[in-house]
């Protein structure tokens, strides 16, 4: 549901059904809502059967890359000769995204149940949930919920009397966007700087502590109990667009809409419905100028692109962007695009882990060039410079943070060039002090 707003008829409310309902936070309350049935069922199934069910559902990773979840699980070694680990990615730091936070705040047991099922399915006895340091409230809620689950026998040495051992360890981050990248997260969990690792080796071969590891996003894992309860076919049928995108998706909408919040939609729902019906469109008297549909790391869409797109992995790509984390940033006609692109570049410059030359230096230089433009000191050559820098920063580094910095810059210049021109020509008041 469009928490903090009531559910909209065009939503398909599965994961968000109990957002805002304090009762769902407790173990007893969650069980009354049908919780932990799926885990009881799972520990009676074979590992392979669970993986097959998830594969058949078409569930894809909700952390940004959209990798098929069942397939990812199937990469884990069949025989558990060394410890296997599950890592739950609760670092949610992609600007515009705030869905995992609500899952943890309101339905912590949904996540715990999903983690437990996934851990069992991949042969892991321990799951680390990496929660970003700023999420103080979800941290407390999750801690309490894990304690309750252990006390109730849903976690521990003998999950629901099945003889299966599943432990969940909550791990607090400390302020680093990059730790949301899966290999950086593994380094961070190991007590290192959050530097992304080069692949190969892939996590399923040598991940956390060098052991076979699967990393999944909070929303991905929270969807798993529903798939086991209601069947892969049900999940797969939740599809209004491309058949490769199934299920429901939480969309975090922020910025210039009347009702910002989290909406849960069937994959393939028209973006128009989300923007106007669910969120109530732009504030009175305004029009939407631009939409960043998948968190700040994806290309900016014009209103026309956004209005014509279907909201699923393929539909958004077709209109020149990406679904990403489904954090939708809506900007109306008052928005200074150059300023906001600068602000995003500054974000990436601040968050670059500093390993790769292109990213470390490129994000900072990009930021400075944009700053110069905003200060009224821009030049025509700056367009080429920014595009060259962006090209140099795309597809050349260890992780895609570098590419992510380039995406809004390149799409911004392509789609909103006149706003840059206005600064350069002096037709617009400088909005930053001279550099």
């Amino acid at each position, binding site marked *: 549901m469009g928490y903090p707003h009531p559910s909209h008829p065009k939503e398909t409310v599965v994961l968000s059904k109990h957002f805002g309902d304090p009762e769902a936070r407790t173990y007893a309350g969650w069980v009354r809502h049908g919780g932990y049935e799926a885990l009881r069922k799972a520990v009676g199934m074979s590992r392979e059967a669970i993986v097959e069910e998830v594969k058949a559902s078409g569930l894809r990773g909700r952390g940004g890359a959209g990798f098929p979840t069942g397939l990812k699980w199937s990469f884990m070694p069949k025989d558990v000769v060394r410890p296997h680990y599950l890592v739950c990615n609760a670092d*949610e730091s992609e*600007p515009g995204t705030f869905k995992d936070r609500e899952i943890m705040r309101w339905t912590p047991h949904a996540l715990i149940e999903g983690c437990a099922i996934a851990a069992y399915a991949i042969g892991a006895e321990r799951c680390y949930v990496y929660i970003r340091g700023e999420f103080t409230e979800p941290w407390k809620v999750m801690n309490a919920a894990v304690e309750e689950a252990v006390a109730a026998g849903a976690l521990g040495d003998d999950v629901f009397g099945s003889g299966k051992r599943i432990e969940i360890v909550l791990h607090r981050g400390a*302020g*680093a966007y990059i730790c949301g990248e899966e290999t950086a997260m593994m380094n961070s969990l190991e*007590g290192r700087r959050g530097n992304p690792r080069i692949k190969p080796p892939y996590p399923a071969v040598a991940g956390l*502590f060098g052991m076979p590891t699967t990393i999944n996003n909070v929303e991905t894992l929270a969807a798993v109990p529903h798939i086991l309860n209601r069947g892969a076919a049900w999940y797969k049928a939740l599809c209004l667009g491309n058949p490769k995108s199934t299920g429901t998706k939480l969309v975090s909408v922020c910025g210039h809409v009347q009702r910002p919040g989290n909406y849960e939609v069937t994959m393939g729902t028209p973006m128009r419905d989300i923007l106007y019906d669910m969120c109530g469109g732009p504030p009175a008297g305004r029009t939407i100028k631009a939409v960043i549909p998948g968190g700040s790391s994806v290309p900016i869409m014009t209103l026309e692109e956004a209005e014509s797109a279907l909201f699923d992995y393929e539909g958004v790509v077709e209109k020149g962007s990406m679904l990403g984390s489904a*954090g939708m940033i809506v900007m109306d006609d008052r928005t200074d695009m150059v300023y*906001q692109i600068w602000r995003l570049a500054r974000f990436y410059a601040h968050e670059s882990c500093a390993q790769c030359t292109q990213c470390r230096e490129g994000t900072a230089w990009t930021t400075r060039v944009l700053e110069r433009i905003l200060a009224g000191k821009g030049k025509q050559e700056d367009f080429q410079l920014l595009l060259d820098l962006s090209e140099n920063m795309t597809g050349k580094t260890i992780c895609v943070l570098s590419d992510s910095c380039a995406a809004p810059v390149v799409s911004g210049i392509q789609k909103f060039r006149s706003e840059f021109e206005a600064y350069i020509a002096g037709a617009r008041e400088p909005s930053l002090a001279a*550099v």
Partner: protein
Amino acid sequence: MSGSHGGTAGHGTAPAEEHIPVFTGPTRARLEQLFTKYPTRQACLLPALWMVQEARGWISEQAIGEVADVLELTPAYVKGVVTFYTMYHTHPVGRHFVQVCTTSPCNICGAEDVVKALLQETGCGELGATSPDGRFTVIEVECLGACGFPTPILVDDDFIENVTPEKVRGIVQRYQ
């Protein structure tokens, strides 16, 4: 780059003071308990640093030495990790630490005005500085993951949503 994250970290030397060990008694016991949750001691580094910050408000060079000791690491190694993460303070901060999100989603909803109001009401004057009465330090941070509730701020461990410049005075008054 203009706009400061007001990082409390820096090249400089933090003030030296006598270091009273953190990992004794119950804190030590908590750490020992953590050791059982990870296959290596090193993995307890982030949690251990959180414990230091909880106990002392910031992480001094001597505290880094203590953490290195208990986790069998070197001080330089620990320092490299500490300075990677923006939530660890390598310098003392005000009694209340205020983090304001100003990344684009909040920025377009007026976050910079919230910053201005905070700097004024707390008396900090500028980002990263501590107010003369020692009560506050205010810094800008990147996306707090609550973009639908602009502007979110963190005062110590209290996550406060939908802050507007008008609400700032009331919030500041709650923290003495």
